[in-house]
């Protein structure tokens, strides 16, 4: 080809080459990362990186369902997100030890306070199990049960309680 033709073509190609990369989507990668981070803020242990609109997720989730939910939430964070690479590892974590009070003396004090307003109810405790007898208005039963559960006993046995 003649140089006269080639030169403008090279100019065009050069211009396009310069113009294309700067033709970015609405948000920059940094902006997208910030948006994704607000979405996953309640999921500890998940990190994100964003490159050219592709979000990569890493970290640990406690179940497949949680892993999938995080991906769905992230995808919905912004339509500029091209895709999500989900490298989250599912690792079933045993739940933290739940404290249960089996000290009968401290439970006994707690049940005195909890049943103070229910004179027709009697409660005793043995080996961490609170047993309740007597009568109580149905609508008030939840108040009593909540107060007893707050003591963290092994069990609250209301089977002998009569509601009116």
């Amino acid at each position, binding site marked *: 080809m003649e140089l006269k033709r080639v030169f403008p073509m090279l100019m065009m190609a050069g211009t396009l080459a310069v113009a294309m990369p700067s033709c970015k989507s609405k948000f920059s990668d940094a902006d997208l990362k910030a948006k994704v981070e607000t979405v996953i803020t*309640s999921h500890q242990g998940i990190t994100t990186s964003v490159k050219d609109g592709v979000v990569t997720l890493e970290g640990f989730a406690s179940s497949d369902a949680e892993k999938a939910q995080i991906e769905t939430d992230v995808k919905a964070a912004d339509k500029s997100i091209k895709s999500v690479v989900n490298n989250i590892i599912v690792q079933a974590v045993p*739940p*933290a030890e*739940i404290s*249960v009070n089996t000290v009968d003396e401290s439970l006994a*004090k*707690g049940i*005195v*306070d*909890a049943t*103070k307003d229910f004179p027709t109810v009697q409660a005793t405790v043995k080996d961490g199990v609170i047993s309740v007898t007597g009568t109580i208005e*149905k609508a*008030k*039963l*939840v*108040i009593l*049960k*909540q*107060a007893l*559960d*707050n*003591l*963290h*006993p*092994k*069990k*609250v*046995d*209301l*089977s002998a*309680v009569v*509601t009116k």
Partner: protein
Amino acid sequence: MALEEKYKVLLDTARSSGINDLNYAEQDGVLQIRGTAPSADVKNKLWEIYGNIDPNFATGDVVMDVEVATEVPGSEVRVITDSSNLNIRKGPGTDQPIVGKAAKDEIITLISKANDQWWLVRTKDNEEGYCFAQYLQTV
């Protein structure tokens, strides 16, 4: 696992209602549930669901203690007794002398929590003492 199945709706609702620290485990045949609810409404909703699955809580399957995130020192709480006044006591126990009273629906200030059952409060009349937390609900 059987109890977790029976109370699946309760646990699922807790999870989807913003209880991020939900923790539960079956111990000695009882499903122990712990967590912090974002509001008193969420806590009440969970108790309603629990009561539907286990009418009158008769089976004793569950011990559930859900605290409310907004019940913190300095927050305001409402007295939710049935109709009577709530005693304000000198110390955290029903054996303690009564130093004042707060009326049903009165709004008082939570100063601190002595423990889960007894909270130090102050009324607008500057009566200060301990109330049984079961009868206080975050505003």
